[in-house]
């Protein structure tokens, strides 16, 4: 079996969320989530949250950072911190983009890495890089990182938009 190993594929079609509730365990030291063709029903951010083994709800405590490089179709471009999209011991949905356009050809794609989710000693680090067609017509290259500030094992993950439903494909890989 190759590395990375494809564990599961989740196809969202006008779905409120994609919840991956199996396959995250001590088998792999790292899980990689590749998401493609994410198209929201309304302009919105895609985000992620986690659930600790034995708990309920996707509402774990996160401290995170998020910045982006962006270039508008009209020409202006810069590197910027995105205040309001990161968290300081928050339990909200962790954004992985700014507002993704809901137009018929607008989408985002990227990769999220989750490290050592089954470890019960340390916090759980994650980071992502996501390319987006923003709702205000710019190309965004968004870098998010942080840790889930729990020592319990994380065994579930949820992807959803900040509002509304979405289409998309999310594939979970294990890296042994």
């Amino acid at each position, binding site marked *: 079996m190759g590395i990375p190993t494809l564990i599961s594929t989740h196809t969202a079609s006008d779905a409120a969320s994609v919840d991956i509730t199996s396959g995250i365990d001590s088998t792999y030291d790292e899980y990689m989530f590749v998401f493609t063709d994410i198209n929201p029903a309304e302009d919105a951010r895609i985000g992620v949250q986690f659930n600790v083994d034995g708990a309920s709800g996707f509402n774990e405590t996160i401290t995170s950072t998020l910045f982006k490089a962006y270039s508008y179709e009209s020409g202006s471009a810069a590197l910027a911190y995105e205040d309001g999209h990161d968290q300081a011991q928050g339990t909200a949905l962790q954004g992985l983009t700014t507002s993704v356009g809901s137009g018929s050809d607008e989408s985002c794609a990227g990769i999220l890495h989750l490290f050592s989710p089954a470890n019960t000693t340390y916090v759980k680090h994650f980071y992502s890089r996501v390319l987006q067609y923003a709702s205000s017509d710019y190309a965004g290259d968004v*870098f998010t990182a942080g840790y889930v500030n729990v020592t319990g094992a994380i065994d579930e993950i949820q992807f959803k938009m900040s509002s509304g439903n979405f289409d998309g494909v999310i594939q979970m890989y294990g890296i042994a």
Partner: protein
Amino acid sequence: MAMTLITTNTSSDDATSDFTSSIDNTYKLYIFKFYDVNPATDTADFTFNGSDDASSHSYDIIKTTTYFTFYHNEDDSNYNLAYQAARDLAQSTAFQLLTDSQGSGGDESSAGELFLFNPSNTTYVKHFYARDNAYYSGDISRQNYIAGYFNTTAAITALQFKMSTGNMDAVIKMYGVG
């Protein structure tokens, strides 16, 4: 991108984690993934260096590098996206930081990956880049971006990871891609 796991080093209160074999011309790209890196000493930096000497592994290759970071305090008191001029190298043989000032608390750690390109090439310098996230001493989440080159045309045959001071726990895996 198919990867092959070559070596796993598990450190338990060790001074260094050394990869002294299998870095050769088998692969054009080597990826080092590090998990659960916890220093014994608070505010220690997680670092690496290379060797081009297969006999003694002196870990003193000249490097020129870049380092930028973005941090955010758990109490929301501070955040900053900035180049870290004190953490890069300019033709230095010192160990390159992958994280800085890590917390040594029982649940504090770092994780990330280092990409090393074509280490066996004997014509060009050897490029690398890394990305990681760390629990910084003082309860801060910090994502780090490091890149640069070993300024040597000799083949890089070994890598060493260590904290800037004190021992560490860590799992570091070396993969070949190709």
